């Protein structure tokens, strides 16, 4: 017979160790810095800050104990006592009038977060299947048993060791050591908290993009409802990647907050010097935001790493798109001058990576000319984008645009596209269904595409497909930050999944087993929320 509240105590421990100290530190920082206070004025930002600061602090404490060779079991209770005393001291010193204890919150948002928390309290974490959750729990247990962040042995069979960012496992090990609660119970409890926090972080992303709280809450609601990419698997919220998603969404929020702030302009007239100076002034004028972003990126790096790539890709795609759009239409971002430098660096980096791959994989493309095209295609697109950004003549612009469209559309594998709707037409697979499918290029060479069965079909059918078309329509009718960010990332993400040439380039460059997760950049809930709010406002006008 299942005890009704078998996990109640673990929830209290999770709340304490994952949020309390971080929140107190957050309030201390907020009392010292008006810029930080403003950045974290939404209550969601406070909660995410509390989580990040707690996890970071816990990680630093355990790292210190590891390096000093101090046993965790004996020292952790003492450290907790000290931290409680320190927290009380901080709390008493915070000038109440300088701090927004709760801040900007609304009933609808509170109701949504509580509902999600209750739903996941009841549904629980995904541990009833022998999934990778048990691998992670075993690693956390080994850390707690050995009292070290860096286990030298393979934690399952003693032999096969895999490098994995240790921050989440360290935090779980700490909670387990202190509370005595078994890891499966803790994992089950963490899921409920992280589902709500992930939703809050997604709200922040939507808010930072749109500057519209109503749209952001609709996006958060849609995030709970539609299947989406793996980010929205709420029962998987205790996985390290989902912690990283929280910090990734928050990083986007901070980045867009930087763009919203007024800043100094450089006195330089043009060129690289101006770009560098603008960047320097941007950093100097937004130091708190930049530091916050760096802390968030560090948290991502030490939790799961990969999301740093998607963060950089998402911002990079937007910067290139906004910078080029600003050349032909009114500026999307008023303070875009430094973007030209960033845009050029990004495009040159893509070209450089293609050159690198061409040299590195010479043995492959000598047998397979399609692989050579795959390595050169992104470079060609980047070159075209560079040409467009220089504002050539109308005729040349149109020619370059046509060539780019032909290259991109021509690189799509139509059978792979059809198989999205008709699974029986799927391209041939490999022995392991996690490996990419095999496509043939124009010259008969072998390329790869991601299998739709790997979370992608669920993400695209049907709200994902609707979102792609809606995003294109929105940016065509009104090219503002929100629409351009959503549309540019949606198109890039889906093109990489449809084109064997682009996907081959990505696979060769990333050396990672799941580059198809680039579809994370299809922000379906925000796209649909933007369409709904705009349509609703137009109908009511």
């Amino acid at each position, binding site marked *: 017979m*299942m005890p009704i509240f*078998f*996990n109640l105590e673990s929830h209290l421990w999770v709340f304490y160790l994952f949020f309390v100290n971080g929140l107190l530190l957050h309030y201390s920082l907020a009392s010292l810095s008006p810029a930080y206070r403003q950045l974290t004025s939404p209550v969601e930002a406070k909660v995410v800050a509390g989580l990040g600061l707690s996890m970071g602090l816990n990680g630093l404490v355990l790292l210190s104990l590891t390096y000093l060779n101090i046993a965790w079991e004996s020292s952790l209770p003492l450290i907790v006592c000290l931290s409680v005393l320190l927290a009380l001291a901080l709390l008493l010193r915070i000038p109440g009038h300088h701090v927004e204890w709760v801040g900007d919150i609304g009933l609808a948002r509170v109701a949504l977060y509580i509902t999600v928390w209750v*739903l996941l309290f*009841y*549904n*629980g*974490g*995904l*541990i*009833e*299947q*022998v*999934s990778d959750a*048990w*691998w992670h*729990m*075993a690693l*956390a*247990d*080994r850390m707690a*048993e050995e009292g070290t962040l860096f286990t030298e*042995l*393979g934690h*399952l*069979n*003693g*032999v*096969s060791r*895999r490098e994995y960012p240790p921050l989440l496992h360290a935090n779980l090990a700490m909670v387990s050591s202190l509370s005595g609660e*078994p*890891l*499966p*119970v803790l994992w*089950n409890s963490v899921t409920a908290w992280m589902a709500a926090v992930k939703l809050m972080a997604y709200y922040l992303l939507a808010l930072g993009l749109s500057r519209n709280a109503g749209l952001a809450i609709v996006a958060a609601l*849609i995030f*709970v*409802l*539609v*299947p989406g990419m793996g980010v*929205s*698997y*709420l*029962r*998987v919220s205790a996985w390290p990647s989902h912690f990283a998603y929280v910090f990734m969404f928050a990083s986007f929020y901070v980045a867009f907050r930087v763009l919203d702030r007024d800043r100094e302009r450089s006195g330089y007239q043009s060129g690289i010097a101006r770009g560098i100076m603008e960047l320097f002034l941007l950093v100097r004028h937004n130091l708190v935001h930049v530091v916050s972003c760096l802390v968030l990126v560090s948290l991502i790096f030490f939790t799961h790493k990969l999301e740093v790539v998607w963060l950089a890709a998402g911002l990079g795609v937007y910067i290139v798109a906004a910078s080029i759009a600003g050349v032909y239409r009114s500026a999307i971002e008023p303070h875009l001058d430094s973007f030209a430098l960033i845009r050029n660096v990004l495009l040159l980096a893509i070209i450089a990576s293609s050159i690198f791959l061409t040299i590195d994989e010479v043995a492959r493309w000598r047998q397979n000319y399609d692989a050579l095209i795959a390595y050169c295609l992104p470079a060609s697109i980047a070159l075209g984008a560079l040409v467009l950004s220089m504002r050539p003549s109308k005729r040349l612009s149109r020619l370059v645009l046509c060539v780019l469209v032909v290259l991109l559309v021509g690189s799509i594998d139509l059978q792979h596209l059809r198989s999205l709707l008709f699974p029986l037409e799927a391209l041939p697979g490999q022995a392991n269904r*996690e490996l990419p499918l095999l496509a043939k290029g124009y010259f008969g060479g072998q390329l790869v595409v991601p299998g739709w069965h790997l979370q992608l079909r669920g993400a695209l059918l*049907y*709200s994902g497909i*609707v979102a792609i078309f*809606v995003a294109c329509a929105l940016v065509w009718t009104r090219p503002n930050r929100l629409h351009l960010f959503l549309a540019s990332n949606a198109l890039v993400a889906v093109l990489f999944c449809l084109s064997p040439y682009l996907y081959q380039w990505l696979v060769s460059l990333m050396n990672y087993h799941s580059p198809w997760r680039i579809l994370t950049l299809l922000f379906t809930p925000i796209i*649909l929320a933007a*369409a*709904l709010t*705009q*349509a*609703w406002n*137009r*109908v*009511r*006008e």
Partner: protein
Amino acid sequence: MSFTKPKVGWAVVLVLVAGSIVYDAMFHFDSDLIQVKRAHSSAQRHWNLFYGQEYVFNDSSIKYQGDIEAMRPLIEPNSVLLSDISTSYYIAAQLPVFLPNIHRHHKRHSLHKWRDLLDSKAVCQLDEPEQRARLKEFIQSNAGDITQVNAEFRYMLVNKDQDNINMRNDCLSQTRSSFVRNVNGVANTIYDGEFLRLYRIID
């Protein structure tokens, strides 16, 4: 509110987008989907209004806590323990032992002798004399020891839980009665709990 052409157009957009959201969201409220996914061992990654903690409680190690805590003082740390694949992961998350019976993508093949033994399914066919002899020879030759970490093969664990759906994942759990019948002579029972029975290899 008057209905001009643009307004009608936006109303259509509103209906289409809302319709796609409602259609895609329906699976969260489908109680039948739970049983379909369980029948196919498909992960229930999304929330479902009709899903509950009883699935998590019954199909994980949460209900084995009493047994696991009782076994803890009986187990020498950094030993090797053989069990079915699901129970191996449950134990890995809570006790300081090494488990050879794990998923392939977690590099099970790194332990060649264990891989050969487990792939042969000898431990699932202990009613056959030659398989019993094979297991005995495996134990006596110390082939189960993980020399890289000085870990001796000391324990075997049987999960008696009939209700845990994961017990059908591995022939070791499906043929546990055969295992229990034939393990005498190579191992003694040192703990027999509500769900878990622990054997220690006879030296």
